């Protein structure tokens, strides 16, 4: 949920900022008063009307949702829409399976795929060389070899294929929508953005069963669920890019009498190209992050071994394929970025095309040889077996065991402090107050922090949460999200400032942050469980691991972006380092910090379902329950919708709080999509 209200075209005549309202008390003081009153009321009304719903109880609406799904299921043989989507799914499946027979699974009657690992690697390296240069070619080579070396060649190829197919379809669907988003009115924009918000916050488990119903099991379901999750970043970012083409250029070329199609094709798309590539990049990352979820419906890829290891509580076994997903993510990320830069260089004649063509032609010879060999020689077709993967897995297992033994006591203490000091009191206040008290308090806070603009969406979302009948669970999930966000922001400020001030720290931490964001949470869930047990705290820690990287990067970029002349000026007045940070760097990067908090909240919330799998209960558990037992689907769907509503509510409050006027100032000076959205 990273909607940005793009500035209107006619930027030139910006109205002067509205004069600050005279306030007697700062906003935070009002907020404290609201909370104080809330606590007093809570003390007297605690435990009444909390709208608690038992583990297997349902409201009428939830039952209706289940019935609706059952009706759709029952109509599957006659429903023409399902027939149509099923056919679509068949095509996806055929496309994926064709690719699989080419490079990942034996193409019967051949005992091996048409092209073996050597050929695939050679072609991939050649492509890397062609689009991005020899450094990337080396990276590609190392990545592909690591897929084979660790023993996950065909799973890796499967993931690559599913990602490729989904991203291709995402581009086909997403680019027209991005153009629409980039060229429609602001109303159209806010509608599309809200829909994208829903897509991105709705837990995948909620729509996994319907997807199977509409598109079938396996590759088709994997492609579709990946598609749904990966589409929004592309639409948003590319749309933003198209919208950001300077109006002077549009006007100048319009004045030459271009048609709107010419404007799009010759001006807007080429000028937004860099941003579109960023969008594509984010889409690929999002697609990879769906790998494990897709494995729940037999989606081919590296997610399968991760999931299978999870069932065996085999940390090492999950770690190796998990790391390979990270390797693939890093490879694709760097390759697409470098390819975009290289094509720009080439267009500007900074690359000797003739020489390059010769190099590529020469390089093509060994590639063809490798291709040929990989069709006929066993050693080039199937990656030679070795023991690297299992031994790394064993090492990881021993390390985990040692780590858990060594730190188990200390972590227990830490868990108890956070639980007693933060989680329990907050949860009691939010979830044990009568629902109308909590609702009133939240509305009051929204009003105080974000004004009327925040109040309206808050009221709508709270009504929605009430209607879907999971109020109590929603408040628990909200508590955990808030606590997690506090921890995320502490980390973001500490590490973000550190990274911005020390280049070496930045270089050291970035790859770790990339890994934290792309590694499937299932890999680190078991060690977390061993350390903290099945508790809300475990869920929060898992969420923090996932959410902190984005927030840290945003804060680091924001602080690093503070103009050096301002820092210099403050230094010239003799400010200490602490003063420099607190009085110059942090206030000046306020926009990024607010954005980091916003993203942190949403990322934490998106981990609610994972939290439900490690003992956090609440909405996450309801979603998993709905996915696991068909008679509970309605409850799961209600929980999913409630998560979406919480997300939209928090997002709108945070955004309104950051900036009371939606149009005139954009809270962030840097483009919002600089955050990877995972």
């Amino acid at each position, binding site marked *: 949920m990273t909607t940005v209200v793009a500035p209107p075209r006619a930027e030139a005549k910006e109205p002067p900022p509205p004069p600050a309202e005279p306030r007697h008390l700062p906003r935070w003081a009002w907020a404290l008063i609201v909370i104080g009153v809330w606590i007093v009321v809570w003390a007297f009304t605690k435990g009444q009307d909390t709208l608690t719903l*038992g*583990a297997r109880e349902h409201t009428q609406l939830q039952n209706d949702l289940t019935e609706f799904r*059952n009706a759709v*299921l*029952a109509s*599957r*043989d006659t429903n023409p829409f399902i027939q149509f989507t*099923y056919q679509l799914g068949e095509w996806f499946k055929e496309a994926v399976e064709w690719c699989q027979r080419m490079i990942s699974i034996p193409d019967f*009657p*051949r*005992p*091996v795929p048409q092209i073996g690992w050597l050929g695939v690697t050679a072609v991939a390296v050649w492509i890397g060389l062609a689009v991005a240069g020899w450094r990337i070619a080396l990276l590609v080579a190392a990545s592909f070899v690591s897929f084979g070396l660790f023993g996950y060649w065909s799973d890796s190829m499967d993931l690559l294929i599913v990602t490729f197919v989904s991203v291709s379809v995402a581009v086909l669907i997403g680019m027209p929508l991005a153009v629409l988003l980039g060229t429609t009115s602001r109303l159209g924009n806010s509608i599309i953005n809200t829909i994208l918000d829903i897509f991105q916050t709705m837990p995948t488990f909620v729509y996994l*069963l319907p997807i*199977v*119903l509409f598109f*079938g*099991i*396996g590759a088709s379901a994997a492609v579709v669920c990946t598609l749904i999750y990966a589409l929004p970043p592309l639409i948003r970012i590319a749309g933003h890019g198209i919208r950001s083409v300077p109006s002077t250029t549009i006007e100048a070329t319009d004045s030459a009498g271009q048609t709107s199609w010419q404007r799009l094709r010759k001006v807007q798309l080429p000028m937004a190209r860099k941003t579109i590539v960023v969008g594509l990049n984010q889409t690929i990352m999002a697609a990879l992050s769906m790998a494990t979820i897709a*494995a*729940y*419906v*037999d989606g081919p890829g590296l997610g*399968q071994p991760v*999931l*299978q290891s999870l*069932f*065996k*509580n085999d940390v090492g076994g999950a770690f190796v394929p998990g790391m390979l997903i990270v390797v693939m993510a890093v490879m694709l990320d760097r390759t697409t970025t470098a390819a975009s830069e290289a094509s720009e260089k080439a267009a500007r004649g900074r690359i000797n095309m003739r020489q390059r063509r010769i190099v590529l032609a020469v390089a093509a010879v060994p590639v063809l040889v490798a291709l040929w*060999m990989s*069709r*006929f*020689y*066993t*050693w*080039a077709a199937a990656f030679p077996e070795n023991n690297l993967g299992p031994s790394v897995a064993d090492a990881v297992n021993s390390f985990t065991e040692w780590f858990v033994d060594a730190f*188990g006591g200390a972590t227990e203490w830490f868990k*108890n402090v956070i*639980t*007693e000091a933060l989680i*329990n009191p907050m949860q009691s206040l939010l979830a044990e107050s009568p629902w109308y008290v909590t609702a009133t308090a939240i509305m009051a806070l929204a009003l105080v922090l974000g004004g009327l603009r925040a109040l309206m969406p808050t009221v709508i979302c709270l009504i929605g949460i009430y209607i879907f009948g999971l109020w109590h669970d929603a408040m628990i999930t909200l508590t955990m999200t808030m606590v997690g966000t506090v921890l995320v922001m502490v980390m973001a400020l500490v590490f973000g400032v550190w990274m911005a001030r020390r280049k070496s720290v930045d270089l050291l931490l970035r790859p770790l942050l990339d890994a934290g964001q792309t590694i499937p949470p299932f890999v680190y869930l*078991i060690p977390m*469980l*061993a350390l903290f*047990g*099945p*508790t809300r705290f475990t869920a929060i820690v898992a969420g923090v691991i996932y959410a902190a990287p984005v927030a840290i990067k945003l804060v680091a970029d924001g602080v690093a972006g503070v103009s050096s002349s301002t820092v210099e000026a403050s230094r010239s007045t003799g400010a200490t380092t602490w003063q420099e940070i607190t009085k110059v760097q942090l206030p000046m990067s306020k926009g990024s910090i607010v954005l980091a908090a916003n993203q942190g909240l949403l990322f934490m919330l998106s981990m609610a379902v994972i939290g*439900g*799998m*490690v*003992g*956090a*209960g609440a909405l996450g*558990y309801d979603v*998993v*329950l709905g*996915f*696991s*037992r*068909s*008679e509970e689907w309605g409850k799961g769907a209600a929980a999913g919708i409630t998560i979406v509503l919480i997300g939209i509510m928090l997002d709108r409050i945070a955004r309104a709080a950051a900036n009371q006027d939606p149009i005139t100032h954009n809270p962030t000076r840097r483009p919002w999509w600089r955050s990877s959205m995972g």
Partner: protein
Amino acid sequence: MRNTRNGWMRGARAVAVVACVTVVAACGGGSIEEQTQANEDQAAEAGGECGDLNMAVNPWVGYEASAYVVGTVAQEELGCTVNYKDLKEDVSWQGFGTGEVDVVIEDWGHPDLEKKFVESKGGDGSATDFGENGNVGIIGWYVPGWLAEEHPDILDYKNLNKYAKDFATSESGGQGQFLGSDPSYVQFDEAIIDNLGLDFKVVFSGGEAATITAFEQAQKNKEWLIGYFWEPQYIHAEIPLEQVKLPPYTDGCQDVPAKVACAYPDTPLKKFVSTDWSESDSTAVGLVKNFKWTNDDQNLVAAYITSDGMSPEDAAAKWVKDNPDKVQAWLG
């Protein structure tokens, strides 16, 4: 001079080695073609008697053991092409109607799914009950072995309240914590606790992995833990878990979920298959129909997979090789 000669020799030897490798590699090339030929021959021979067998693999190791043993036999003995599909139960059942799933080899009882898909229960008839698979599911309340040893009286529910405080955690709000499990399983623990007047609060682990980790840690670190668990489950081979006695199960005592105050019944695990597939002439139909083995058999294969780190294929193949009699009985 000798050195030079040696150098020469070494060079020649290197060339020879490269040549040999190339020849070997070329022979390897032959092997791809040979095997292609072999596969074609085999396919011609088998003549589509078995064809594809789509085997759902539900996400727990015991299931995996059963599925791969049946799959291995089907592949080796009947020449089937077995497709293993990693799916949760609901999705598997949904796949019966679309031809994407043929067999669910271990079903713990899903009345709701039966109502939707089994004709005799009022469903659309896409699923068919193929009888019991010989395994018996035992569900109950378990504590780690050390606890049973140090406090033997804990194995009776009547004494649980005495220890409730010891079971308290950060999640249970002062009461004793009872660890509920994966949402996939039928659980009446909240009702049982209420109706037996126990001072416990159910905290759901949310997943099998979380439950297993919790019991492992509890045994290892001598922590207090009581929770929902079941057999067959491979973890029983690794750590001792003891069952707590509840009021015995009687017919109908679990009919009204809110009033349950008795133990879970032992569940004979069943096989369900796609109706279309069961009516086909696939030779694997008979195999699945006849398949039957014991909890011990399954635990053994599950232990191969988990403790010995074997792949499910290897584990199944090993068991099949060691138990030709049982396998022959299924094929007969």
